[in-house]
């Protein structure tokens, strides 16, 4: 087999009786499937679902015939057609490789190789995970969510853009109810755009950058294999590590990324866990700030949230119908990422993020505007008050929960004010923090859940999350009261 034969159009001929079956099915196809008839025939004989559906819609008789042929082949060959096809392709590719590949002895045990092995080691690998998470926290949590967000929010929006927009809108639009759609506290520009550009964009951008570096270094498959067993207990496979890690940055984006999971069951469980137990960077920030003066509260918060997360995953794995996931992954060599590739990838993801998520932030602004205009919000906060009272929280907290769903910083600031005014005891603070963390992160995540998983799943998840969040808050309130009474 020389170079010449490889440059010609090539068709792999299989051995009998496989080849005969491929030809028969290929002849029967009427050719309108956008692929070579032989390719379609091979996919049909291997039982490829998408192809079976496509051809079945037009030529159901061909699908029936190929199923018969496949059964006969399987009986004759003693193995599934897919395996026979793969074996022949493998043998052929080995022949080609033997003719054209030259192998040189590679350098023994480079740094990358050693690093790659350590990253897969049962406990050295876990130490490396801790190191990576710490670096992530430093870069995204402290630098991007702190320094950069502060600058953009205060300097760019609060001091410069927002007052100008407010003034211009007040000038141009005579009706206050319409002014509020664009400007002031909940306007499209002053809330929707500010939220997306000044708060979420830097956090998500930093996260994408960090993530692209991890991705190009070849680390992620190692992380997935290391955590696969834990994930399996939660009904997920190691692959789900990627959206879960992303969720610590932004749950909305992470919910979009659950697309990459293989089965619908896995996607639903991951979406549910992201909505319930993975605090996004905004939620983390709020909690850290609220409980900074309360070390035992922080520990209690972390413990309760982790417990709820693991229990929910454990139950979801048992209650959701469907096959448990299988995990497999190529383990590429560890490499030094190339700067240009990382930047191009980060830019592409940020662009995609803007196109997918910005509209939802803008929609949130419109919804808040409508809610206030129609008095619906007052009704909702009124309905929330007794629920919060059952958790030992004051009525003022209702506004925080509702608006926090649309505008996370408002929830945080509101809680500060309540705590400052002495309206929240330490125990109430912990209860509020746990409930807010478990509570649906924000309207954007809800929107993406709706878009990706459909209304039925999105509403079910939301219902369960609300129930678990308030149920946990209620139990925690009573547990703390009881412990307080005992000691």
């Amino acid at each position: 087999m020389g170079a010449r034969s490889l440059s010609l159009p090539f068709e792999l001929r299989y051995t009998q009786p496989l080849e005969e079956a491929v030809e028969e099915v290929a002849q029967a196809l009427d050719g309108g499937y956008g692929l070579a008839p032989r390719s379609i025939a091979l996919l049909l004989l291997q039982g490829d679902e998408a192809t079976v559906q496509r051809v079945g819609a037009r030529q159901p008789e061909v699908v029936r015939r190929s199923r018969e042929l496949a059964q006969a082949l399987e009986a004759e060959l003693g193995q599934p057609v897919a395996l026979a096809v793969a074996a022949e392709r493998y043998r052929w590719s080995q022949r080609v490789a033997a003719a054209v590949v030259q192998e040189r002895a590679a350098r023994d045990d480079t740094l990358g190789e050693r690093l790659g092995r350590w990253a897969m080691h049962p406990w050295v690998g876990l130490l490396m995970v801790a190191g990576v998470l710490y670096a992530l926290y430093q870069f995204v949590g402290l630098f991007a969510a702190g320094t950069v967000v502060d600058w953009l929010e205060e300097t760019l929006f609060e001091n410069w853009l927002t007052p100008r927009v407010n003034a211009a809108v007040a000038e141009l639009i005579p009706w206050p109810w319409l002014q509020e759609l664009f400007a002031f506290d909940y306007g499209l520009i002053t809330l929707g755009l500010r939220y997306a550009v000044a708060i979420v964009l830097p956090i998500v951008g930093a996260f994408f950058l960090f993530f692209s570096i991890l991705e190009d270094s070849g680390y992620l498959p190692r992380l997935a294999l290391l955590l696969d067993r834990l994930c399996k207990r939660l009904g997920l496979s190691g692959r789900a590590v990627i959206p879960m890690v992303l969720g610590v940055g932004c749950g909305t984006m992470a919910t979009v990324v659950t697309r990459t999971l293989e089965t619908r069951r896995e996607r639903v469980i991951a979406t549910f866990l992201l909505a319930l137990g993975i605090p996004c960077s905004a939620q983390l920030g709020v909690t850290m700030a609220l409980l900074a003066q309360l070390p035992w509260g922080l520990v209690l918060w972390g413990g309760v949230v982790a417990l709820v997360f693991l229990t929910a995953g454990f139950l979801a794995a048992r209650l959701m119908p469907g096959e448990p996931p299988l995990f497999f992954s190529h383990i590429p060599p560890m490499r030094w990422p190339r700067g240009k590739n990382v930047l191009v990838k980060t830019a592409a993801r940020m662009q995609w993020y803007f196109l997918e998520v910005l509209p939802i932030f803008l929609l949130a602004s419109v919804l808040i505007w409508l809610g206030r205009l129609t008095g619906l919000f007052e009704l909702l906060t009124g309905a929330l008050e007794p629920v919060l009272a059952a958790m030992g929280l004051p009525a003022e907290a209702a506004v925080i929960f509702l608006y926090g769903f649309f505008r996370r910083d408002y929830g945080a600031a509101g809680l500060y004010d309540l705590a400052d005014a002495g309206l929240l005891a330490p125990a109430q603070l912990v209860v509020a923090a746990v409930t807010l963390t478990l509570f649906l992160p924000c309207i954007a995540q809800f929107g993406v859940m709706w878009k990706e998983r459909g209304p039925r799943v999105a509403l079910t998840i939301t219902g369960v999350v609300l129930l678990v969040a308030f149920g946990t808050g209620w139990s925690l309130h009573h547990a703390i009261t009881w412990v307080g009474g005992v000691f």
Partner: protein
Amino acid sequence: MVDGRQKTRITLSRLAEGERAQVVQVTAREGALAKLLAMGILPGVELSLVQAQPLPVVRMGSTTVALDRELAQLVEVAPLGPGSRPGRGGRRRCRWWRRG
């Protein structure tokens, strides 16, 4: 089955760390089979087990793949004796996959 000789067969999940083996049979079906084939695990292929914990990691030629125990149980292999154990101990015999 692959080369006619009778050899002991074990599942890939029971192969010892560092051991080399030849794939004899893939008992997986449908989805699991498609995954194994996508990784290039099929009868006749030689591989070595890089590590067993927390998940089996195998090396075939210059390709390394990880698979969970459920998948590894669906692959029957015939052990070929110890290979090199990357990263364990000092100098080793030359690696079979790298001989020029």
